[in-house]
């Protein structure tokens, strides 16, 4: 007998709907399956058939509203490699600063969501209040909180003026004071430790074979970070190191607690990178070709193919672009968002766990296209569907039972 309960990826309803089916024997999960067709909007087809490259840049920004800068950054890098467009030095540093600001805002958002899944609403409100400082700064520098439209072919669209630099430094001091308090709140709390230690373990071998990326894979001990491995933008000057949890706690287990550790450490790393880039910001202009019709003509006459990779807050983002001469659209455009590779790790992480652990483990890879919209339980032949509210209530009940 099968019945469905109305859908509702609700508060904090940040993620797109996705359907996860878990086969369950009693309370233990034995199999996990994912259906992900609710969010497909045909963006690559739009870029290949309907838009010219400048319009595709704005569509690529709306692939995800949270990791907003990584998709235009990759598209711009790939087209610049094919069409041989130069980028001035000041623009490369500004791109680094924008990328790190986005990383701070995304990790703080995730920290609030993870606390909410565990039942810790106070931490949700606290983290999002702290995040408003970065959002104010994004608005002052870029003009908009989300969908900033700062990247373009050949540089960036807006400059960091001399009036804004003291405000950025003020934000840096604010976050430096707060970092120890956030670390204590998240990492020393006994209940969070009980709910996340030894839960959702991803061993290093599986992390390598399933090609996971980002904090998910760094928490399992793999030292993979595009900013450290491949030179792009101004990162070769900055000497970034991939952060693994044994730098803070001393050992690497690969569970949910380690993923929280990695993300909090990365916030601190981003603040340091912004400070260093501001000290080294070279003077000059920000755009190598300010007239848009000239850029469009140059792109229309070039031919070739290239790939571009960027370290988004969730992992490694890769775009493949192929251009053909005389064609005013991009001939082929393939986008692979970081969550695409990380979703395959859910199966390994959720085996032999209880149903109440699903929300925190699923949220720990920071899915940019998910939300357990419906979970189908196959319990000895009878099917039952749980909504996300029921799942979250189960998760909170477990927290209360533990403490």
């Amino acid at each position, binding site marked *: 007998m099968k019945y469905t309960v109305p859908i509702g990826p609700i508060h904090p309803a940040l993620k797109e709907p996705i359907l996860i089916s878990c086969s369950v024997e009693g309370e233990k999960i034995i199999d996990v399956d994912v259906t*992900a*067709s609710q969010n*497909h909007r*045909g963006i*690559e*087809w739009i870029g*290949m058939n309907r838009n010219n490259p400048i319009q595709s840049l704005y569509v690529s920004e709306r692939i995800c509203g949270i990791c907003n800068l990584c998709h235009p950054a990759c598209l711009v890098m790939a087209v*610049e*490699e094919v069409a041989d467009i130069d980028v001035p*030095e000041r623009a*490369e*540093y500004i791109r680094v600063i924008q990328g790190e600001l986005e990383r701070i805002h995304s990790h703080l958002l995730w920290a609030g969501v993870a606390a909410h899944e565990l039942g810790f609403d106070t931490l949700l409100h606290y983290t999002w209040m702290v995040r408003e400082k970065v959002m104010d700064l994004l608005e002052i520098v870029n003009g908009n909180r989300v969908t900033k439209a700062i990247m373009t072919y050949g540089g960036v669209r807006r400059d960091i003026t001399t009036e804004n630099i003291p405000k950025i430094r003020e934000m840096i001091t604010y976050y430096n004071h707060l970092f120890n308090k956030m670390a204590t709140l998240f990492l020393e709390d006994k209940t969070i430790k009980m709910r996340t230690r030894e839960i959702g373990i991803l061993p290093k071998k599986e992390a*390598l*074979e*399933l*090609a*996971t*990326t980002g904090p998910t894979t760094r928490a399992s001990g*793999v*030292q*993979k*970070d595009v900013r*450290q*491995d*491949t*030179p*792009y*933008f*101004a*990162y*070769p*000057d900055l*000497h970034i190191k*991939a952060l693994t949890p044994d730098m803070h706690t001393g050992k690497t287990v690969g569970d949910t607690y380690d993923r929280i550790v990695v993300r909090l450490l990365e916030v601190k790393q981003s603040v340091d990178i912004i400070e260093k880039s501001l000290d*080294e910001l*070279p003077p000059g202009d920000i755009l190598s070709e300010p007239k848009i019709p000239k850029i469009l003509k140059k792109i229309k006459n070039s031919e*070739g193919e*290239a*790939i571009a*990779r960027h370290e988004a807050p969730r992992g*490694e983002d*890769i775009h*493949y672009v*192929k251009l053909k001469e005389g064609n005013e659209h991009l*001939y*082929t455009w*393939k986008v*692979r968002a970081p969550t*695409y*590779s990380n*979703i*395959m790790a859910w199966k390994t992480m959720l085996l032999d766990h209880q149903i109440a652990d699903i929300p925190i483990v699923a949220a720990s890879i920071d899915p940019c296209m998910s939300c357990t919209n419906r979970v189908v339980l196959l319990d000895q032949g009878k099917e039952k569907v749980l909504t996300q509210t029921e799942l979250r209530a189960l998760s909170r009940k477990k927290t209360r039972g533990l403490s």
Partner: protein
Amino acid sequence: MNLKEVTELLKEKGESHRIQSKMAGVKNKMERKSLWIDVKRDKLEEIVQTLVDNSTEFPHFCVASTSDMGETVEVIYHFTINYGKFLEEIQINFKVTIPKKDLWIPTLTKIIPGTLFSERELHEMMGIEIKGLKDTRHLFLTSDFPKGVYPWRRDETGPKDLNKLYEGWKQ
């Protein structure tokens, strides 16, 4: 292994190869290099296995992309090796060209389990048959999407039923 050793190792199994590069960095200017190798369809599993056996850590599989070139279809597999060391990563791409009349390609899920989603997507978006793949359900399109319509193709099987804003929307 550095770029030269990798090229020597892989170029016998492939047809032609080229290296593409782009400068990056401001004070410390460096080159970002990628290696493109053309591979025939029946040598694909062999060349991927060579890459897996000879790299220090398991190679990182990024994605598989595809283009419709009229009579043929190109499928490109993007890999990277040598991550973990500072600025030494090498991006490797294997390009396989298959004729449209005989559209199949062998599966790589036995060597690298992380290719499952990419292969399901190739199957639903371009209509390529993946020999040896057990799970061929739709990944991103709904299960009742019309059969025979492949969104990434440029011939008559491309999607026709577009959601126009109002009647008379210009093409």
